[in-house]
């Protein structure tokens, strides 16, 4: 039971303010604005997970989280059915895969209607890795997720098993690295119990979300899609699982492909593109080095030289860290926020350009400082062009240095960089569907910690065979926040949740009551005779 004041009545519902929160409630008779009422849970109209629609004419670029959920059920239950473990894939189509000891799919169950739309027959006999790839690919083909649009596609994988968990985690990590389609999505991996599987089936909700939300308030469980839009939910997930991020180069491709939906001048687009291309270049270099390091690790393993093995392991770790920190780069986040959320008015664009100027400046400095031989030649051309045109604005940005954060990214050069340069030129498939109708900009709660993790300086000096030039990069904290500020006024219209019309009873009238009275008298007549007098 809650106490609240009626703020406003709409045609289909009223809005009340109660304990710092606003709720929609059903309409009833005699409601007045300002009335202080008591209402109960069942008077509330549940909102549709905070989904919102943007006005047409606004840039509607969106943030998705689609998900794939793999779930391994407890061996107890499985053993009864003769399976070693089971795996449920949830991309909204939810599919349970039952596995044998060798992680081969023996059987599958479509857990919801969406799953029935996929052709699942072929799954039987596939390895877990193949099955994961197949299911994801089918989901893409059937339009459940679109890896080319701006929305982040999420995939959760949950294991529930008394033993095999490690194996499954390894397989998932492996397939995430190798599969082309899985590279383009985020995979979240966690573990659950058989009870939670049953609970999920009952509630018709994704199992992985049940697993991570067991301590959270029940009402907050949403679809997988909406779950990952909430930064807090994401953090909650990380307490119990891991998130394998989408490959950065794909993410950048998506951003670049969708730049055109912002009405920018050519010059601005170019600046943005240059910044993105640079990040991508850096990423490719790191990935290449990682490959080499992995090879070296193999060689070291074969030779049995323990020192070499250890060194190679360290190299791999540090490279992985570098990749992570690059993926977490603030500027990418910022740009995504902008693309997702903002009606780009002139000021916002100006600020964005300012911040990118800073970024480009820093990149420039990096390149001067470091003795790179052949790294990113193509880029330098781009960057210089842009810089010339914007030089005059730069001075004004220097005042607020106190806010700046230092991102130290490793700019590693290895002999193999040449290879990557060629591939980098941004030729990506550019037909993407901009998702006109829906937009989720529901960043409800964010954790302050988010902004403090920019300084993972990674030291790759120990690397045996790879020379590392450590370069300080990106000095754009101030610009970051500026741009965001400009994005505040975006006008988002809410989806009118389809509430049913409330049935409000008519007012009392004499004759009714009399009837009521006499009707009810029959039931409990014993007690009543005695009561009434």
């Amino acid at each position, binding site marked *: *039971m809650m106490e*609240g*004041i009626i*703020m*406003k009545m709409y045609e289909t519902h009223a*809005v009340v*303010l*109660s304990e*710092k929160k*606003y709720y*929609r*409630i059903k309409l*009833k*008779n*005699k*409601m*007045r*604005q*300002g*009335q*202080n*009422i*008591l209402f*109960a*849970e*069942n*008077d509330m109209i549940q*909102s549709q997970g*905070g989904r*919102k629609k943007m006005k047409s004419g606004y840039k509607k670029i969106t943030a998705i989280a689609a998900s794939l959920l793999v779930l391994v059920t407890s061996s107890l239950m499985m053993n009864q059915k003769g399976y070693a473990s089971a795996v449920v894939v949830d991309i909204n189509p939810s599919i349970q895969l039952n596995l044998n000891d060798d992680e081969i799919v023996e059987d599958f169950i479509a857990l919801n209607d969406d799953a029935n739309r996929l052709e699942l027959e072929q799954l039987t006999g596939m390895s877990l890795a193949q099955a994961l790839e197949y299911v994801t690919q089918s989901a893409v083909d059937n339009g459940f997720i679109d890896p080319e649009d701006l929305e982040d596609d999420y995939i959760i994988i949950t294991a529930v098993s008394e033993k095999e968990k490690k194996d499954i985690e390894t397989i998932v990590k492996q397939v995430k690295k190798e599969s082309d389609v899985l590279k383009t999505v985020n995979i979240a991996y966690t573990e659950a119990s058989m009870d939670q599987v049953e609970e999920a089936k009952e509630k018709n909700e994704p199992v992985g979300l049940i697993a991570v939300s067991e301590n959270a308030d029940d009402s*907050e469980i949403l679809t997988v899609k909406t779950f990952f839009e909430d930064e*807090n939910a994401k953090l909650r997930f990380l307490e119990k699982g891991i998130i394998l991020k989408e490959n950065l180069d794909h993410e950048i491709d998506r951003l670049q492909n969708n730049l055109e939906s912002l009405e920018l001048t050519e010059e601005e687009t170019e600046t943005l593109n240059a910044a993105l291309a640079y990040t991508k270049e850096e990423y490719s270099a790191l990935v290449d080095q990682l490959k080499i390091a992995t090879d070296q690790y193999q060689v070291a393993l074969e030779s049995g030289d323990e020192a070499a093995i250890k060194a190679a392991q360290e190299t791999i770790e540090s490279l992985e860290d570098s990749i992570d920190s690059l993926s977490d780069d603030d500027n990418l986040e910022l740009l995504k926020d902008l693309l997702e959320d903002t009606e780009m008015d002139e000021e916002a664009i100006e600020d964005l350009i300012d911040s990118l100027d800073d970024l480009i400046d820093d990149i420039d400095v990096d390149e001067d400082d470091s003795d790179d031989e052949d790294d990113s030649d193509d880029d330098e051309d781009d960057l210089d062009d842009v810089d010339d045109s914007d030089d005059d604005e730069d001075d004004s940005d220097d005042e607020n240095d106190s*806010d700046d954060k230092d991102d130290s990214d490793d700019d590693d050069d290895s002999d193999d960089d040449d290879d990557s340069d060629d591939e980098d030129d941004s030729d990506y498939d550019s037909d993407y569907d901009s998702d006109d109708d829906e937009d989720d900009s*529901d*960043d*409800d*709660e*964010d*954790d*302050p910690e*988010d*902004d403090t993790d920019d300084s993972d300086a990674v030291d790759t000096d120990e690397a045996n065979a790879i020379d590392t030039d450590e370069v300080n990069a990106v000095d754009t904290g101030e610009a970051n*926040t500026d741009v*965001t*500020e*400009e994005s*505040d*006024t975006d006008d988002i219209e*809410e989806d009118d949740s389809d509430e049913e019309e409330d049935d409000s009873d008519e*007012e*009392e009238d004499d004759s009714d*009551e*009399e009837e*009521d*009275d006499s009707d009810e008298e029959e*039931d*409990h007549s014993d*007690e009543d005779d*005695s*009561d009434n007098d």
Partner: protein
Amino acid sequence: MRLQSNRDQIITEIQKDIHSRTFEDFVNSYQPLILATVSDRLGRYVNKNNDDAYSVALEAFCEAIQKYDMSKGSFIAFAKLVMTRRLNDFIYKKQLVYENIDENLIVDPSMAFDDELALKEEIQLLDQELQQFGIEFDDLVNESPKHEDTRHRTKIIAVKTSDENDLVNHLYKKKRLPVTEMCRRFMTTRKIIYGNKSYIISIILICIKKLGLIKAFI
């Protein structure tokens, strides 16, 4: 089953000692039932202050506890029956008394309290102000922070902001929050402000327009 017998046990206990603490707790835990019964019968929401119908139902509920005989069916059904009957009596009597008076006065026991009028004025003012910023109350349903601690944090930020004239001026002039400046001054993150901007704006407006009655609910 276990639950029900537990409930019956409590009722038996209360019937033995009507002044026990358990009685109060028990009634409190069934308030939603009482509320729903009243609301169903009257077809309107129960007023927080001074709603006679609610008092009648509450009384009836207590009566039901005392008169309940567990051999004759479920307590809930019985309590509902007693409450509905008492409510019917109440309405009927009222209509006899006020037969010749404007109907609105009868059904609306709490009509036109001064407080309520004042509150209504504040709400209307807030509504107008919010509309300047393109915010509807309806938007605030989805855009209010869902977690208690976030609500608390955003409130603190908003209240502090309302004390700083330059920030408020910026808000009115540009129709948006000075996020960067707020982050800097209040040592907070861009995301918490950015994610809850409508909610924050609403609280700032409540503070600077000195809407004290609404503020009590924020």
